[in-house]
């Protein structure tokens, strides 16, 4: 609480990581999995197309990567801004 400007910078950096992550989150599920599927129809994956793969498997794998990446980046950010847990 002592250093408000540093806390502000920390929070802004956090919100930025969240926004980027959520763009990817929406792109792979609502985008590749549903709305953009017709555009990916040409790329075949094992008897179907890339959109079908994203809807049934790909989005889940990307979600996993997003959460672990967030945890890793935030733990680094905590230390950089001196707000990590002792």
């Amino acid at each position, binding site marked *: *609480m002592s250093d408000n400007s540093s*806390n502000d910078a*920390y*929070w802004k950096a*956090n*919100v930025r990581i*969240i926004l980027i*992550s*959520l763009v990817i*989150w929406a792109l792979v*599920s*609502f985008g590749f*999995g*549903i*709305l953009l*599927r017709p555009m990916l129809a040409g790329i075949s*994956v*094992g*008897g*179907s*197309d890339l959109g*079908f*793969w994203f*809807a*049934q*498997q790909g*989005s*889940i*794998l990307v*979600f*996993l990567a*997003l*959460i*672990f990446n*967030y*945890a890793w980046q*935030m*733990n680094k950010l*905590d230390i950089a801004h*001196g*707000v*990590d*847990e*002792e």
Partner: protein
Amino acid sequence: MSQFAINLLFVGASFALYIGIAIWARAGSTSEFYAAGRGVHPVTNGMATAADWMSAASFISMAGLIAFTGYDNSSFLMGWTGGYVLLALLLAPYLRKFGKFTVSEFIGDRFYSPTARIVAVVCLIVASTTYVIGQMTGVGVAFGRFLEVSNTAGLLIGACVVFAYAVFGGMKGVTYTQVAQYCVLITAYTIPAVFISLQLTGTPIPALGLFGDHVASGEPLLAKLDAVVTDLGFKEYTAHHADTLNMVLFTLSLMIGTAGLPHVIMRFFTVPKVSDARWSAGWTLVFIALLYLTAPAVGAMARLNISELMWPNGGISGEAVTTEQIANDPEYDWMATWQKTGLLDWEDKNGDGKIQFYNDKNEDLQAMAAEKGWEGNELTKFNRDILVLANPEIANLPSWVIGLVAAGGLAAALSTAAGLLLAISSAVSHDLIKGAINPNISEKGELLSARIAMAVAIAVATWLGLNPPGFAAQTVALAFGLAAASIFPALMMGIFSTKINNTGAVAGMLAGLVVTLIYIFLHKGWLFIPGTNSFTDADPLLGTIKSTSFGAIGAAVNFAVAYIVAGMTKETPAEIKALVESVRVPRGAGAAQDH
């Protein structure tokens, strides 16, 4: 050994394990009862949360939901996993930092409003109670099928086991039993799937098999499946048939609803640190993904298996399976077994000694049927839940696998039921009794009231499981709708905006809640009373938006109303802004532990 003895052995052994854990993990303080003393390792918590979240619906119904609809039901896969991204990025770390015991307590403190807390408690109790009915009926059904006892006796046995570890162990007992239950359920789900994947595609990993080649025909599995189901007059499996807008909103509603379910959120209060809460959300999704990546493979492979069993001689242009084959061929024994449960039935309508299975609503097939003298689809009943439960029998797997699936289904239902009951009992003892009725209650008194609340919750859930209201199946939409429209937005705004004040939050929650309830009731009947609905989900009020997809719109209404009302009323006090600031940074979470 008979199948009954094997099932009894597996279920009995798993129950003995749960009771053993109950004796070992007794809760001695409210911190242990509500949050397992905040000493749970993030990976352990991930496993427990996966079991907490994956209910009878995930274990038993999801593969069937996907098998019979194909691509269009991918919403369940993306929605029920994508919610964890929201939970991990937007809620879990901050709520852990806040360091209290219930979701409603955060809402009450952050919005400095007992009213907000009560609204949250009501949403929590309604959502969790409706959700628990399905789990309890699931326990009864699984017992009835596998252990040849009545549904009632099965349900009572299940309730006694939950009582043993939830009343004495609280969150601590529930956590460690959920870890054991996760191990049982994932083994039970994976083993039959591996066998079937090997049989059909030659790869032991079902998720790869789904996109691999079908051994018998040499074609890609999904191409083969598309060909087989379209031959039978059904829609192409991998194609997009559903309304796109509704599919997007339904997926989003499931995501927001998942992130807002209190029994899931509160599991993240049990880890020691904020950074652990972040990792733990990732581990949770790892353990969920192990089942969710397998489920679509199980669905597709089972659908192909069944279609080929019904048309064993060269597909629909060949000959259908004969009633004699069904009666005598061991490959078809499962049909008689499941006919007894009423979930499967067939009838030789045209008396030709064969059972023709096809889509009799398809015009091309009607023409073909007229030519061949068929009188409609003769596989008259096929409950989608059979897919997972009967899968080992359909694929001719050894009888111990069937025993394992019985134990797995029960583990899935019991672990979710215990998590929900814990959410209900802590809301009653911590938010209502300590928070509103008797704030001066002693630690011992609160622990006792938490145990009594748990016992009462189990009794009520058991009663509801024995006498399920006719609308039981509809209420899952209600649970997700309430979580999405009221709880998730309130939590998110509480963390990410200092502008939202008490009036704004309460107005937003009530607005989200009311529009969602009205929309659901307009389509499903007022209080789910049949015949009182003005619309149906086949022809909904707003374009193509079904009542199950409305949660996301309810959430948007909540956000909008909260911002508008907060802008017109008194600013958030400085001390609350300081609270929000402190929730946003991890440092100091250790101190919050011993409040």
